């Protein structure tokens, strides 16, 4: 039975139970707010603290912080209803707040609340290359998740490729777990962050973390190659798995330097070029979005983590990729301010100032990292005509470029209509950034926020069966 719209069941619906969502839910409940914490996973922690039952801390980071947040959650269970395995597919404004629609198994559930905190995180950003659809090519996050969450090594001989410090964490985890890491192929120049000494000095913890990964890689004799890319993956004779990769030195624009190609044998590739924030819900609600320093489309927030839509707060990667520490700070602030909006007292100014100061330091570090590890447009030179861009609809690069060159498309949305990239089940999550980049490159311009908006709007964010829709919602508080 749905609750009536004049009497929302909760003060706050928090979507996502990763670092930002856990912090938001617990700080809001500590202020006295009634909270629904809605998450697609079977356990709290999100992707960052992905784990199986129990406390297996191998390959985990900042587990103490996780235990603190989980402890707070347990302590506040009278005020927080935790809804695991709920996939939110739509959030809409109602007369008195918001209705969050989720599916759980075959059932639909509607959660009514006066405010919403969006803490939906991010996933690995991908750039296509010949062979990237072969089994054995994984996102870096998938390989990390298999190890942390499942206790499974993705392969025996692994190449780690892409850009950004996350590659070091993934490679170090693999090496420690017994895989042979044939190399870390970093397309950027990792020394670039030395150009931001203030941001670096303000974050000794993160620098030490990076140095720790480098020590592990050195101990396992893992070669790290800067300005080098995996520009192709090659199939085994059966055609059903990866047999090796071609790596090449890249110039500043990420075009392969002629004559530097070499073949490396491996059975697995872990690849990631930064992260894509999940901003379906802010877009559904009409929140303003902007292009961030890392060329991600993110939700606009103010110093209280408020979006441009009253009652909608954003915390974590959805308002700018910055990692777990920043996400927890943003989540805590979002929870405090959302609780205040829905009736709790004014948050302690000293606490808010302290959190805001730490948030600023983390944000400046994230900005320095983004500026040190930019994605350069020359990646499109890795593509063959028949390289798949959209994995779902199996759209080749030639169809995308033809839509621009011959059919007159001037933005990725038009290309999507002509050639179907982004029209499959993932709704452009995997190919949106690459399609926008390829189209912009073809047109001799850079990617705009509008380009990415055209590939990111998803009125129905999760697949839902007609049967589930027809059966109608279950609503109200859950005990």
């Amino acid at each position, binding site marked *: 039975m749905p609750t009536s719209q004049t009497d929302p069941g909760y003060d706050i619906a928090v979507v996502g139970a990763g670092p930002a969502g856990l912090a938001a839910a617990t700080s809001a409940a500590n202020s006295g707010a009634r909270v629904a914490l809605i998450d*697609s996973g*079977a356990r709290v922690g999100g*992707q960052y603290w992905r784990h*199986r*039952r*129990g406390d*297996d801390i191998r390959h985990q980071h900042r587990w103490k912080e996780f235990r603190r947040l989980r402890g707070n959650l347990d302590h506040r269970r009278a005020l927080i209803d935790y809804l695991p395995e709920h996939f939110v597919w739509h959030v809409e404004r109602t007369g008195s707040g918001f209705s969050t629609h989720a599916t759980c198994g075959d059932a639909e559930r509607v959660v009514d609340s006066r405010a919403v905190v969006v803490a939906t995180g991010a*996933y*690995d950003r991908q750039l296509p290359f010949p062979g990237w*659809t072969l*089994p*054995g*090519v*994984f*996102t870096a*996050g*998938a*390989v990390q*998740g*298999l190890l942390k*969450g*499942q*206790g*499974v090594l*993705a392969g025996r001989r692994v190449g780690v490729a892409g850009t950004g410090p996350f590659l070091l964490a993934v490679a170090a985890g693999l090496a420690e777990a017994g895989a042979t890491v044939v190399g870390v192929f970093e397309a950027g120049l990792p020394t670039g962050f030395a150009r931001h000494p203030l941001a670096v000095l303000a974050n000794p913890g993160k620098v030490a973390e990076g140095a720790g990964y480098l020590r592990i890689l050195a101990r396992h004799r893992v070669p790290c190659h800067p300005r080098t890319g995996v520009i192709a993956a090659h199939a085994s004779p059966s*055609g*059903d*798995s990866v047999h090796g990769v071609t790596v090449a030195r890249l110039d500043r624009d990420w075009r392969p330097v002629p004559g530097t190609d070499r073949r490396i044998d491996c059975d697995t590739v872990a690849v990631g070029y930064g992260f894509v924030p999940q901003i379906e819900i802010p877009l559904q609600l009409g929140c303003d979005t902007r292009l961030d320093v890392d060329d991600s489309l993110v939700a606009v927030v103010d110093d209280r983590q408020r979006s441009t839509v009253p009652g909608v707060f954003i915390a974590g990667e959805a308002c700018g990729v910055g990692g777990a520490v920043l996400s927890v700070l943003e989540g805590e602030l979002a929870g405090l301010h959302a609780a205040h909006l829905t009736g709790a007292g004014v948050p302690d100014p000293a606490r808010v100032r302290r959190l805001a100061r730490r948030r600023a330091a983390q944000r400046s570090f994230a900005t320095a990292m983004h500026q040190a590890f930019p994605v350069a447009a020359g990646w499109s030179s890795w593509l063959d005509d028949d390289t798949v861009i959209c*994995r*779902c*609809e*199996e759209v080749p690069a030639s169809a995308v470029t033809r839509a621009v060159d011959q059919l007159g498309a001037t933005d990725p949305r038009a290309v999507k209509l002509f050639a179907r990239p982004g029209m*499959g*089940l*993932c709704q452009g*999550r*995997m190919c949106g950034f690459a399609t926008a980049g390829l189209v912009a490159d073809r047109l001799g311009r850079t990617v705009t926020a509008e380009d990415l908006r055209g590939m990111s709007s998803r009125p129905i964010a999760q*697949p839902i069966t007609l049967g589930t829709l027809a059966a109608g919602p279950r609503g109200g508080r859950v005990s």
Partner: protein
Amino acid sequence: MNDTAFQFHFDDQQISAEPGQTVAAALIAGGHLWWRRTRVHDRPRGLFCGIGVCFDCLVTINDRPNRRACLVEAQPGDQVSTQLGAGRAHLAN
């Protein structure tokens, strides 16, 4: 963690899984990298993003097609089958 390992079926093979392990993780641990063939070009696909975002790992579990193998936890006795195309072959039966 593996003292209560169990089995499920993948096509005509037996796969071992641990409690809480996803179908995809158990298949990969068992040496299987793909369990779907694509609709357009009949290409093999398995796990890619690992977190339910990319829909590459779709598979048929207990006659239900289009399940995300990276999200569904394996259960003892599950019948997991390679999914062909859009996974609607069962409609023809």
